[in-house]
């Protein structure tokens, strides 16, 4: 009995000791966290100011929009949002953008995943040069590719078609998708492929039934990055599209410079172009965070 009491005392002492040391270290931790939080707030604010400016400008009349210093008290209007959506073929440009983006994602992600899986499963001596070559392609200035794509498109009579822009975007996007997915597949132990092979799977079945479900968060990230890249792409869209296939970034650029009211119009357009992406991001946020942290912690 006395021994139990002694042990309890010892434990409670140890607990006190732990509590004694805790305040100092937690105060330090707290101060660090406060500083970090403050820095992140400033950074976030810095990034949000242009967005806020765009939102406010889109709701202001041009006279208010050009007031210096900018005023927060004004009579809000949805006139320019309405005008953008109804009078400027915005819906058509948006649908062009969505078609091109969806086409790029639908082709680029599966091809990238297959290539990345293969590269993650062959010896490093063989995959290394291929990955380096892909990296080089990624680093190549894209502006230099615009003219060759235009020439090829003209030759094949594909200018102002979705196919040409989708193919061009896949070409510049594919190395990134492969690199990204390669990282995810490399984190999946090879033992699982081997266990699947012993359980009766051929290579395709192993990939489809065992590996792919595990790489789903990674694929979501790859899909989102591809979507962002193709949705926001300006240069290729400007060179390779025409009246029928013009995408939103190109269309919005043409809103500027006509008269003073075009600034509010361009701001409303910018908000409009952002909306689909914000909605998609909100819907896939959970997968995005999981995908970005995948492999960081062993489960």
């Amino acid at each position, binding site marked *: 009995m006395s021994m139990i009491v002694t042990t309890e005392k010892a434990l409670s002492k140890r607990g006190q000791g732990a509590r004694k040391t805790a305040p100092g270290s937690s105060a330090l931790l707290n101060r660090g966290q406060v500083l970090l939080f403050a820095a992140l707030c400033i950074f976030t604010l810095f990034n949000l100011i242009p967005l806020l400016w765009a939102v406010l400008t889109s709701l202001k009349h041009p006279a208010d929009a050009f007031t210096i210093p900018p005023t927060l008290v004004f009579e809000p209007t949805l006139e320019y949002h309405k005008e953008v959506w109804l009078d400027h073929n915005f819906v058509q440009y948006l649908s062009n953008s969505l078609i091109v983006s969806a086409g790029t994602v639908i082709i680029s992600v599966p091809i990238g995943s297959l290539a990345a899986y293969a590269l993650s499963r062959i010896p490093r001596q063989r995959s290394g040069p291929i990955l380096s070559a892909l990296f080089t392609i990624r680093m190549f200035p894209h502006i230099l590719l615009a003219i060759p794509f235009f020439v090829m498109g003209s030759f094949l009579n594909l200018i102002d078609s979705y196919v040409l822009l989708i193919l061009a975007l896949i070409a510049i996007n594919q190395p990134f998708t492969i690199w990204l997915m390669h990282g995810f597949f490399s984190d999946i132990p090879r*033992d699982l492929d*081997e*266990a699947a092979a*012993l*359980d*009766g799977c051929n290579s395709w*079945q192993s990939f489809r039934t*065992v590996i792919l479900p595990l790489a789903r968060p990674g694929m979501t990230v790859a899909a989102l990055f591809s979507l962002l890249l193709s949705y926001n792409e300006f240069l290729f869209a400007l060179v390779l599209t025409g009246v029928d296939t013009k995408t939103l970034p190109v269309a919005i650029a043409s809103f500027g410079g006509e008269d003073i009211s075009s600034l509010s119009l361009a701001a409303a357009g910018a908000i409009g172009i952002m909306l689909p992406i914000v909605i998609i991001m909100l819907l896939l946020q959970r997968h995005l965070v999981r995908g970005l942290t995948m492999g960081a912690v062993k489960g």
Partner: protein
Amino acid sequence: MASVEIMNAVKAYGDQQVLHSINIHVEDGEFVVLVGPSGCGKSTLLRMIAGLEDITDGEILIDGKVVNTKHPKDRDIAMVFQSYALYPHMTVEENMAFSLKMQKRDKEEQKQKVAESARILDLTKLLDRYPRQLSGGQRQRVAMGRAIVRDPKVFLFDEPLSNLDAKLRVQMRTEIRSLHQKLKTTVVYVTHDQVEAMTMADKIVVMHDGYIEQIGSPLNLYDQPANLFVAGFMGSPSMNLIKGRMDRSDPHQFVTQNGKVIRLPCPVDIDPGRELVIGIRPEHFEVSDEGTEFEVEVIEPTGSEIQVILNLGGEKATAAFRDRLPLEPGDKVRLGMSENGLHFFDSQSGNRLSPDLYMKEVSPEH
């Protein structure tokens, strides 16, 4: 059930040969353990049997049929991996039923077989859980369940217990052994732990640097190691191996490299010019007034016995005693050894000398 025959199997990666003409015969229903230090090629050999590694040369036969070019899924084998390799996105039940699903077996049959295997391995309550919700021992049992559900010809185990803590390892060792006794399936089991090999195997294959050093029953390897490597590898603490030669004047005496004399329990007839290594297992030492004097350096009580690290003119040796001897570091103690615990190895070849070649009848003058 099936036999496994490995005939002159060779494995090379480019110019580097990692397995050299391996020959092993595993009887139908036998439990064979491949044991050896890291890098000896035991896992590579197991993976060659599984079909996960190509065979550079030679043949592997399962149930009498050459399987060299067969895909792993067509070999009718099951393997338990060191990492368990459970599918993280599937429940225990889905993991276990996966191979049956791939074989397109009837759903009722799948359910019944999984239930039966789960009952054998006490997994019934865990069938709805995911691998991440299981402890190490439970994951291990699921990995075995996934293997037995298929009723394969051969089970392959690749260091399945090395991720478990010591207590669980002993428990799982018994479970695997009792499972084998129940199912009577042929097993090839890889481990680097010689205690695991000794306690589980019907037959042990000791490997080193891509060669087989010795094949035999656990006690056969322990009592009659073929060479210095096996003598040193099997047994814990390992056999004491001391270099030296026989005394020119007295066949009862072995002289170490440092000039110290070890008194032998019987006369030995080996050329005094021949360089030897004498081998004595720790438990074969006994306190004897006529024995050799050692200095006690360290005492390690394990509870069931006392292990004593000894010094003989710079040579280290370990002795193990069941009796709780009142020894202290620095003490001098005279130790003899039992006759059947004495081994001699040729220093150059490393091979053990057969006692028939050197044992003498005790002559009256000695």
